[in-house]
C-alpha cells in the first residue's frame, strides 16, 4: 500500500503540473504542448503502463485490505470510541478510495479512453483542451469532479503520512514535518484540480 500510494502521489504531482498550464489562459497552447509531449514521448508511454499497473495494484490491495480487516472482528462493539482516538478519515480510507474510484471511472471515460482510442485508430490525440471545455459545461459533471477531489483530499490527509510510516521513514524527528507536508499537499493539490472544471464552467478561461 505504502509503495503504490507514494507512486500515485508522484503521479499526482506531474498530472497537476501539466493540467495547471491551462491557467496561463492562452487558449490551451502551453497545455496542449505539454499534453502532446506526455501523449507521445516513449518514456512517458512506458511510465503510463507502470502507472496503470500501480493504480490497479493499489485499488485491489486497498479493497482486499479493507474487507480482510473487517472480517477480523466478527462481533462488533455496542459502543465505539468514534473520533476520540482516531480521525474519521483515517478510518475511512476504503470508503474514500471507493469514491475516488467511482470518480476515476467517469474521468477515464471523459479523457483517457477517448484519447488512447483515437491514437489507436491512427487519428492522433484528441484536442483535450476543447474536450475539457465541452465536458465541464455540464453542472453535474463539475459537481462530481469537485466531490471526487474532496474525497482525494481526505484520502491524502491520512495517506501521505501513512505511506511514510508504512515504509519506515516517518521517524520521530521528521514525523511532524511529514505530517505538515501531507496536510498541505492534501489541501493544495486537490484544490488546484477543483479549480480546473470550475474555471471552465464559470467561463474564467478562454
Amino acid at each position, binding site marked *: *500500500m505504502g509503495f503504490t500510494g507514494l507512486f500515485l502521489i508522484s503521479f499526482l504531482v506531474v498530472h497537476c503540473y501539466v493540467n495547471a498550464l491551462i491557467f496561463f489562459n492562452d487558449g490551451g497552447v502551453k497545455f496542449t504542448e505539454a499534453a502532446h509531449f506526455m501523449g507521445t514521448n516513449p518514456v512517458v508511454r512506458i511510465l503510463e503502463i507502470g502507472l496503470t499497473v500501480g493504480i490497479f495494484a493499489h485499488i485491489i490491495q486497498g479493497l482486499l*485490505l479493507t474487507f*480482510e*480487516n473487517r*472480517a*477480523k*472482528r*466478527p*462481533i*462488533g*462493539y*455496542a*459502543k*465505539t*470510541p*468514534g473520533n*476520540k*482516538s*482516531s*480521525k474519521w478519515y*483515517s*478510518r475511512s*480510507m476504503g470508503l474514500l478510495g471507493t469514491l475516488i474510484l467511482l470518480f476515476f471511472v467517469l474521468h477515464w471515460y471523459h479523457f483517457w479512453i477517448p484519447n488512447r482510442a483515437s491514437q489507436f485508430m491512427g487519428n492522433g490525440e484528441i484536442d483535450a483542451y476543447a474536450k475539457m471545455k465541452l465536458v465541464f459545461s455540464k453542472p453535474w459533471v463539475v459537481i462530481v469532479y469537485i466531490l471526487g477531489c474532496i474525497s482525494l483530499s481526505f484520502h491524502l490527509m*491520512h495517506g501521505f*503520512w*501513512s505511506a511514510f*510510516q*508504512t*515504509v*519506515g*521513514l*516517518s*521517524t*520521530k524527528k521528521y*514525523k511532524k514535518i511529514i505530517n505538515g507536508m501531507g496536510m498541505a499537499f492534501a489541501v493544495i493539490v486537490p484544490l488546484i484540480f477543483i479549480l480546473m472544471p470550475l474555471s471552465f464552467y464559470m467561463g474564467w478561461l478562454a
Partner: protein
Amino acid sequence: MNLTLKVWRQQNAQAQGGFETYQVKDISSEMSFLEMFDVLNEQLINEGKEPITFDHDCREGICGACSMHINGQPHGPWHQTTTCQLHMRAYKDGDTIVVEPWRAKAFPVIKDLMVDRRAFDRIIQAGGYISVDTGNAQDANNLPVDKHKADESFAAAACIGCGACVAACKNSSAMLFLSAKVSHLALLPQGDVERKTRVVNMVEQMDKEGFGSCTNTQACEAECPKGISVQNIRRLNAEYIRSVFSGGE
C-alpha cells in the same frame, strides 16, 4: 453514587452472548472500577446468580490482565490508565456504563468479559527472545549501550501485553504490541543476533493468529495504557523491510 451497568454475559466461547442490565448502589468515588465490579458480583452471589467473570491480577496497572471495553474505550476514559487504576470518580450519580469484552477474532471470549489472549504468547514464542550463553551474568559495562537507545528500548519494554491496542483498532491489528516487542530487542546489542529472523517470524505468527493489518489510524497509541508510541510501528516496518531486502531469514 448509583449506577446502571450494561454488561456482556456469555456462558462460553460457543454460546451466544448478550447484554444484562444491573443496578449498583452507594458506590464510593474512591473505589476502583474493579472494586465496583466486586460489589456487583457480591450482590449477584447474594441473589443466587452467577457472578460476572473478568480477568484481573495485579490491580496496580502492571500485569495487563484487566481487559474491559468501557463505554466504547478499552480500559475506560482515563488516558494511559488500566481498568484497575480507573477510579469511580470518573463517573457521576445516575450514569449508565456499558462494559464489553475485547472484540477480535484472535481474542475469542472464554466467558463473559474474559478473553483468550494466548495468541500474544505465541507471537512472543515466535521470536520475542534473545539467545545468551549460560553462566554468570557479565559486568553490565562490558556491553556499552547508547543512552538514547536504552531509553527507547525501555519505553517499548513498558508494554504489559494487555491487548487494548487490538481492542481499540478498527482492524483488530496487533501491530503496536508486536512493534513494542520487536523494538525493545532490536535496539539493544543483546538482540542483534536474531534481529533479522525475529521480525519476520513474529509478523508471520501475528498474521497466522488472525489479527488484522495496520492502516496507521493511531487509535492504538491513543488507547494504550502504557503510552507505547506508533514510532515503534515505524521501526517495525523499517526492520521488516530491511530484513526482507537483505535476504533476512
